[in-house]
């Protein structure tokens, strides 16, 4: 039975929505060489998330960390619960990580918060199509706080030296 048919029939199963939580189905293909973990990230403005000093860009939330169900260059299907009600331009991205090298890469496509095929709203709304991005940005280095701090300290020392020479 196709999902559309099932959904049509199931509208009569009343009183089944016990909460607003949804379940997002996601996966990935053609993950970058060196990928060790993946994460599902929600971004309120829909723009691709970034990381600075180990902190996500404003409006970005990681919903699933350290996922490592890889088979070759594929990430096998994931189902992640999002308990927050979403709206507007919000979207989900798949982010890959190479912890050894301190790098991350973001999927070039996103999943809208209200995608019906990949997002389940109840136990009667079964995920049929997992969000499966197959293209990612190039690896981007994650500047760690300690590194950033050293750079700042280095810059301050350099500035002091310049001031002394003057």
């Amino acid at each position, binding site marked *: 039975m196709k999902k559309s048919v099932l959904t049509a029939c199931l509208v009569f199963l009343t009183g089944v929505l016990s909460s607003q939580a949804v379940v997002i189905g996601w996966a990935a293909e053609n993950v970058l060489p060196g990928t060790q973990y993946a994460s599902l990230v929600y971004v309120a403005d829909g723009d691709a998330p970034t990381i600075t000093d180990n902190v996500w860009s404003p409006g970005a939330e990681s919903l699933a960390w350290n*996922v490592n169900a890889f088979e070759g260059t594929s990430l096998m299907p994931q189902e992640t619960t999002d308990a927050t009600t979403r709206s507007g331009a919000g979207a989900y991205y798949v982010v890959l990580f190479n912890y050894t090298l301190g790098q991350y890469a973001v999927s070039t496509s996103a999943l809208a918060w209200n995608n019906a095929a990949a997002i389940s709203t109840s136990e009667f709304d079964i995920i049929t199509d997992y969000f499966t991005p197959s293209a990612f940005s190039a690896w981007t280095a994650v500047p760690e706080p300690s590194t950033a701090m050293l750079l700042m300290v280095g810059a301050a020392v350099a500035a002091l030296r310049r001031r002394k020479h003057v």
Partner: protein
Amino acid sequence: MKKGWMTFAVVAAAGLVHAAMDPVEGTNVVGFVEIAAPAAKNTIIAVPFEACMQAGVSGKLGDLVSTYGLTGHSSDAALADQLVVLTVDNGSPAYYYYYNDAEDGWTAITTEQIMPDGSKKTLTPPAASAFDVARGQGFWIKRAAGSGSTVYVQGQVSETKQATAIGEGLNLISYASLQSFDLNAIDWTGAAGTNGVSASTDRILVSKGDGSYYTTYHYYTGGSKTEFNGKWVSTTGTIALPAANIPAGQGFWYLRRSGNGAFTFKPDGE
């Protein structure tokens, strides 16, 4: 009493006790299974029995699902426990509804449902006493608020292998076991699997019982993790075998990705 008679009596009593402890076997053996079905929740159940006193014959819905301990209501179906059976009505998938009438037991509910072509259709299910339920067929029980936490299914125990037909798409089924069972201890010849994210991989969705979606298992074949080949695995987070057995009488969704098929369930090694 003579010593000889006393010995005979003791031996005879021991024999009777031993006989009472032996597992029940043979034809025309009836039994029941208690299934967890909490109040105000929807639970997928599946009947592991056949019609009483009729080996190899599908039982009737009204006979197989006991109303013992369930919430009945004589006038308002919404206040009673309900059964929801996924079936085919005039070639189209449809749900048949029954409620536990306080006096008459499982009673059909006439509903208006949206059909695949978008039209609305009034469906009046056949009487529960006439509705065939194949061994291993699953359906929903909707427990009323404030009702109990269990439901009993009953019927004749079958010792034959279970043939279960499935169609393309979603099917409510189960392995008709009288005990909890391991998904991977059953013969799944005919299941379709891959080692990636292909849309051709069959899936099994087991309800968590709390209304919060399912635990999903994918049929894994031909992958680099050879220990999982030919097995149902969960893939969320990491790839792993099922963490728990499925209780007797609990059903699940089987998502058939392509074509009709059938399984002949039998215990591993049989």
